[in-house]
């Protein structure tokens, strides 16, 4: 029982981290139609910048400055790269971000080398907050939850209670109408892109110390972010939140409990074959849930696209 | 009386709470030229979209040659001999004019999903497409990308695509919208020429075109047909005068 509580907390941390990436991406995606493949690369940049800053000025300055730098870089990419490519259509935009992801990874290796960076949890937070049945919950995780929730609340406030937020929301659904109302849509695009990438940067800053700061960190997270927003429904912030948490919990629980495929198959009335070593389906029988935990979101996405193309909370068909 | 080409019974459509089409009964005979007029927002285009299954109706039936179209996809309806054009030009802008027309001929000529015929080898396709291009006066433009044509030419091409398949029920959605006088005359003549002997249903704002073309006119106001009759009688109908026509006629003169 205690383990369930611990898993819920862990899944929450994973989910909220994913949410910080998917929130920015879903805004960018639904507004500009850009599948930003480089989104996770900005997350990586956030971690690297924060590491570099933390060496000189400490963790907290890194938390403050790195997302800003990433946001400015993101806005620059939109202004000088994407905007130019935008006129050619969506596929070139996608290829652009794809190439950008490739280039950022190479540049990171060029600048910081290929090894993992010794970017660590700050001393103040390096203690066990509390323990449940021998499982310690590090204070840093509580800190991560706190940061992500404040960002979500902040984002929700800006989007629903401010003028800028209203315009963005309108632009999500009716980009052309908003433009014809005289708003500077390119500027909004640039702003949203900058804020979205800055959010990814924040995620990188706080995830770097626990998940590792290395050149492959973007690739590991890359496509799962898309999966999240597709499951949640394009353009829906709530959808992104729900899908992120869903994925966080599904993967956490699948890893924590060894559910065996053979048990499931036996459960639905298929008996285990006698001679397993000769059976061509032997590998299917030996699958366990931790083995496939990280591909469960993809299965979920394909099913959702088949049966509910608009996603859980989406209004538009993707 | 023979089966009507198109028959609508109790057709209704709501978007959310708003009822756009509020029960339409209409019967259009074979080889009849029928125009649907009405003020903006009356639901003319929605009516078109309901007939061609672009949207599913909330209730009611659409029958083509006596056959119920419920549950059919647009392409299946097209194969039954109903073809339409769109209010906003809807062609294949990246393909050449010739190819636009040829694509419209493929199904009608029985090629279906063939991947063992070469389109360029088929004389009937080439000749058929050229004949259509000749009819719509675009023979000289045949090798240009359709997107580079002038607006009137694109509208003509759209009509060409619509009639190319040989459908016997043709639906045109504002074929002359946004055109100058001379262009309007050109399109009107074109429509007269290419729909010879076919059933034509058109939505049109230009009363000159309507009265020049139509055998009968239906007036659609707020999702309901308030009158269906010959042009002369519609013009004289006081209800129509009141609701719509008067103002439109005044504006025209």
């Amino acid at each position: 029982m205690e383990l369930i509580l611990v898993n819920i907390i862990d899944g929450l941390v994973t989910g909220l981290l994913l949410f910080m990436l998917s929130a920015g991406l879903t805004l960018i995606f639904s507004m500009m139609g850009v599948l930003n493949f480089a989104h996770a690369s900005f997350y990586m940049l956030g971690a690297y910048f924060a590491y570099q800053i933390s060496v000189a000025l400490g963790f907290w300055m890194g938390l403050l400055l790195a997302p800003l730098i990433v946001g400015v870089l993101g806005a620059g990419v939109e202004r000088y790269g994407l905007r130019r490519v935008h006129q050619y259509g969506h596929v070139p935009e996608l290829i652009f971000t794809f190439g950008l992801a490739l280039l950022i990874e190479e540049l990171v290796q060029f600048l910081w080398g290929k090894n993992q960076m010794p970017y660590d949890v700050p001393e103040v937070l390096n203690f066990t907050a509390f323990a449940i049945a021998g499982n310690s919950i590090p204070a840093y995780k509580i800190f991560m939850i706190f940061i992500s929730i404040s960002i979500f609340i902040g984002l929700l406030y800006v989007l629903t209670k401010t003028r800028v937020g209203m315009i963005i929301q309108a632009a999500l659904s009716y980009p052309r109408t908003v433009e014809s109302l005289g708003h500077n849509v390119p500027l909004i695009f640039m702003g949203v892109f900058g804020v979205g990438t800055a959010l990814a940067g924040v995620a990188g800053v706080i995830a770097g110390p626990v998940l590792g700061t290395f050149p492959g960190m973007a690739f590991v997270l890359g496509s799962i972010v898309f999966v999240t927003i597709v499951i949640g429904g394009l353009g829906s912030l709530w959808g992104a939140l729900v899908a992120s948490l869903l994925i966080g919990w599904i993967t956490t629980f699948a890893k924590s409990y060894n559910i065996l495929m053979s048990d499931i198959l036996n459960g639905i009335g298929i008996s285990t074959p006698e001679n397993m070593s000769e059976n061509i389906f032997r590998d299917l029988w030996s699958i366990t849930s931790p083995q496939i935990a990280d591909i469960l979101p993809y299965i979920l996405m394909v099913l959702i696209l088949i049966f509910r193309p608009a996603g859980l909370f989406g209004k538009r068909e993707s | 009386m023979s089966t009507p080409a198109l028959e609508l019974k109790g057709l209704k459509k709501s978007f959310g709470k708003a009822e756009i089409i509020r029960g339409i009964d209409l019967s259009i005979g074979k080889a009849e030229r029928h125009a649907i007029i009405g003020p903006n927002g009356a639901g003319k285009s929605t009516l078109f979209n309901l007939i061609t299954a672009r949207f599913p109706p909330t209730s009611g039936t659409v029958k083509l040659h006596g056959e119920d179209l419920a549950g059919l996809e647009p392409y299946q309806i097209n194969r039954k001999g109903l073809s339409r054009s769109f209010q906003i030009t809807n062609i294949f802008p990246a393909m050449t004019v010739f190819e636009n027309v040829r694509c419209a001929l493929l199904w009608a000529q029985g090629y279906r999903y063939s991947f063992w015929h070469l389109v360029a080898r088929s004389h009937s396709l080439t000749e058929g497409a050229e004949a259509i291009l000749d009819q719509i006066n675009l023979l000289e433009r045949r090798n240009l990308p359709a997107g580079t044509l002038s607006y009137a030419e694109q509208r003509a091409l759209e009509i060409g695509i619509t009639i190319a398949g040989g459908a016997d029920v043709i639906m045109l959605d504002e074929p002359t919208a946004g055109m100058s006088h001379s262009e309007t005359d050109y399109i009107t003549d074109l429509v007269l020429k290419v729909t010879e002997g076919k059933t034509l249903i058109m939505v049109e704002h230009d009363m000159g075109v309507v009265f020049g073309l139509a055998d009968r006119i239906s007036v659609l106001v707020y999702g309901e047909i308030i009158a269906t009759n010959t042009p002369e009688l519609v013009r004289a109908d006081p209800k129509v005068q009141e609701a719509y026509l008067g103002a439109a006629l005044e504006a025209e003169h």
Partner: protein
Amino acid sequence: MTDQITTDPSRPAERMRAGSLSLTVGPWIIAALALLVMPFIFTSNSALTIMNQMWITVIFALAYNMLLGQGGMLSFGHAVYMGLGGFFCMHLMNYIEDYGLAFPLPLLPLFGGLFGMGFAMLIGSFSTSGAGTRFAMISLGVGELIAACSVIIVAFFGGEEGISGDRTYGLPFFGVEFLKQIEVYYLISFWLMLSALLMYLFSRTPVGRMANAVRDNPERAQFLGYSARWVRFYSFCASGFFCGIAGGLFAISYEILTEENLNAASSGVILLVTFLGGVGFFFGPIIGAIAFTLLQTVLGLQTELWAIYVGALFLATVMFFPGGLAGLMMMHVPAYKLGKAGGLVVPYIKTLVPAAIGILGICALIEMIFHYRHGATGDTEMTLFWTTFDSHSILPWIIAAAVALFGIGIARATAPAMKEAWDEANTPGGAS
């Protein structure tokens, strides 16, 4: 740059003129001759291996472009179809070896193709109902699932070692046992010509033409009697078939298939290859595949930093030449038709040669920074462009920086003249 040239790369208007559909045999004969002659020019086994790789990528890229360029469907998991075809062929090859089956090797790719098509039919049955994000994300999901399966389902995929076989146990084909690279080369070349021709012809069939129509305007196509979904489905299956053929050839060439043939990176590469070549033209992917294979293999031999250069090249292509390399070439057709292409040569030399020198200078600087940062202590000597020098002394840095600045400077100064010459060359009339 005129409008019709910098257009959206998926615009095929210039490419497949309806009126000129009569098959032009010229390019095909030249291509066939080139394939025949290549091994006499590049005789080494490694050159043959690289060419084999290139031709396989060409088939794969052409098959991919049946979806992307012709059908407007963006797939993120297309390596799966090639990989599965290859794995199936590999099992078949082992079956031939184990049971001494009388089966001529050259027919093997056909079975890979059929398997690829079978799998495409399965996935296409639900993925082709939409073209946009939905199709793309389903392809991504399916791609990830199959790639993940490759390490889980060991019986079919062989885990991370993959499965391997020996191609020489097939029935000798007119006395050829495929022991030598050159024999494999000609086998692959044969399939390349055949596949490319079939794919070209496919684009000229009713369903091939409708694929273009559905790409441009699915709704209009529906009102012409065609189900957009079925048209996409047929394109998808055809693409799966040719991907499978490429997979079969991969099995013959490398005699091993691994998880790498299925993973997301391979799917990403083929997207880049196709786009680099140009999706708007039939021959675009061919150029892309050749260019990319050379870049990856040969540049990879020269520098560890190859991926930086390739990444930068992609960004530059997508930003400045969205039509890809093929688009860049076809830009010059109007000028050529006007008989004014000759007037471009001198301005081009004046701008592009300094630009190239400037870029090489920048590359030299990058390499020097890299060497300075990551080279061994005491190992201050580095060799670049046939020159050996000390990367820790100031002179080479000054030279490289000067070359870069100088080259780019001249290129910038002469660029307006080039632009002028370009406009002039594309304006009809006037002195030519």
